[in-house]
């Protein structure tokens, strides 16, 4: 009995200590994440304006109804999903390829590893501006080079042509964030046990099968984490579209839509509803992704 109650007391003390240590970060999280999120959620049910956020009345689901009836919102959703799926797919394949190259014993790979990180280390707005200049229809170097090569006669309006602007934004995003993929996958590659490849080569397992049966499954957790990071980033993409084609509906993402309603139209109610919808969308995609991956892992037995 005695020892039982004493160990219960010890347990209680440990739980108290744990809470004590957790308190500061919980407090900060509440202040910078939970509180604004709650406020946004609250405002999404009001008719508040950005100029006078203190005067509002509750309007129920009117804002969500307005949001879901706006075709531009749905186009933003489509744009965002399209951008996310295409850019993350390309970055994953490209990142994996480059990581495999850098992981093999080629000359100068140390230098290569450093160089490849440069695009990722530049702030996105700076990269976007840089690309904007390079893609300029009259003075841009891209058109200049293409003209010199005789591939085009007049400059292409890369960011003004509605058919081209999304591919251009995806291309720039690939240029910026592939290094991030490479870095994460490279870290995963360096964790793979060396010996199994020697065993496989003695057992007569050809290189392609070593890749599909050993490297890929063992690398899957690393790739999955990298893809998840990129998914979250891509779903709330704002800066690239905003700088390269700020007014185009063809590249309007949900983040840009929310900002537009909130800042340009001063409509805090619908803006908050849009923000909440963005949050729910990202949460939903993440939840599906994590669930599918867990399930998959259990099936594969990794």
């Amino acid at each position, binding site marked *: 009995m005695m020892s039982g109650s004493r160990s219960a007391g010890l347990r209680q003390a440990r739980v108290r200590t744990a809470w004590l240590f957790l308190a500061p970060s919980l407090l900060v999280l509440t202040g910078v994440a939970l509180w604004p999120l709650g406020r946004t959620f609250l405002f999404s049910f009001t008719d508040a304006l950005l100029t006078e956020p203190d005067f509002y009345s509750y309007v129920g689901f009117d804002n969500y109804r307005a949001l879901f009836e706006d075709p531009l919102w749905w186009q933003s959703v489509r744009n965002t999903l399209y951008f996310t799926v295409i850019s993350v797919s390309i970055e994953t394949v490209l990142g994996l390829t480059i990581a495999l190259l850098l992981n093999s014993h080629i000359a100068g790979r140390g230098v290569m590893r450093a160089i490849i990180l440069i695009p990722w280390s530049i702030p996105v707005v700076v990269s976007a501006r840089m690309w904007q200049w390079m893609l300029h229809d009259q003075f841009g170097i891209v058109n200049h080079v293409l003209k010199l090569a005789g591939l085009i006669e007049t400059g292409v309006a890369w960011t003004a042509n509605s058919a081209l602007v999304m591919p251009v934004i995806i291309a720039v995003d690939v240029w910026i964030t592939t290094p991030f993929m490479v870095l994460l996958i490279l870290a995963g590659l360096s964790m793979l*046990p060396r*010996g*199994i490849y*020697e*065993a*496989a*080569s*003695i*057992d*007569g*397992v*050809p290189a392609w*099968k070593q890749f599909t*049966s*050993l490297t890929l*499954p*063992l690398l899957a957790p690393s790739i999955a984490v990298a893809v998840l990071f990129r998914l979250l980033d891509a779903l709330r993409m704002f800066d690239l579209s905003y700088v390269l084609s700020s007014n185009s509906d063809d590249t309007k993402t949900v983040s840009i839509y929310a900002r537009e309603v909130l800042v340009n139209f001063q409509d805090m109610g619908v803006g908050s509803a849009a923000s909440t919808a963005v949050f729910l969308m990202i949460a939903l995609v993440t939840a599906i992704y994590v669930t599918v991956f867990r399930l998959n892992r259990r099936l*594969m*037995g*990794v």
Partner: protein
Amino acid sequence: MSGIALTNVVKRFGALTVIDKVNLSVAEGEFVVFVGPSGCGKSTLLRMIAGLEEISDGELQIGGERMNETPPARRGIAMVFQSYALYPHMSVERNLGFALETARLAAGEITERVAKVARFLKIEHLLARRPAQLSGGQQQRVAIGRALVRSQKLFLFDEPLSNLDADLRMEMRVEIARIHRELKATTVYVTHDQLEAMTLADRIVVLKDGHISQVGTPMELYEHPANKFVASFIGAPRMNFLTGKLAIDGSGSRLDVLDARHGLENFGYEGEVSVGIRPEDLILGGGDIRLPASVQLVEPLGGEALVHARLGNGQSLVVKAQGKPDLKPNADITVGWLTSKAHLFGADDRALSAKGA
């Protein structure tokens, strides 16, 4: 045909030569152990036979065919690694069957062969598990199983027991001996443990600094070490070495060790020698040559005891004595040996042998 022939085989890493003109032949069905201290090149030599390291110079033949340029998969070998190198994401069953699966054998035959090997190694109950869920000894069995399942004629073992604790090492040693007895496959086995070499090998190859120091059966190496290095490497506890002086005396030789001397057959050698006596050949209070000593420490091992003694010149000796000698530290004793049991090594560390007779 699975004999191995190495002719003037060389391995260089840049300017560094790690294997220098090694010549060796391994007969079909033979169990050969490469032994030596770390860095002697034994693993490198094995990996060259396997095809995991390129051969810089010389020729490797397996089954009478030149293999220098043949990829590992086509050398007809199976290999067990020190790290086991099991596929971590596959079940034991798939680990065993993976090579067969790659070779496109029918599913039924794969299952059959995997089951047979699993029964042979007593790992049937582990087939559904993954490597991380196995103990070290079980992983080792699976690694051996993966080598067996392909039924190759040549087995290569790279320090397979180094990561196991003492009990398991003994168990797996017996297991590997059984496998060789039953399958009679040519086996090359690398270890730094002379005990494994002594107990498993038909022939031992002692390597030092990329050279073969001596090749022979375990008893040949134990009884007639060709040099001081082999003498000190084979046998545990290791051989004691004392400095002595050999002189020609009439038709024979005379050996002086400290204050003791004894006549020997003619060695045809004069000068300083190393006298090597194994701990089990030292006799407390007996022998042809006897030296006064004092007891430093007695380590009882149960049936026998190791007596650490110090000679008058401060040199230490280890004596393996039967039973439990009743000796206290600092007690004065006499340590001796029969000259027929002693090994003499000249200035170049090579073993000296008696002339004529």
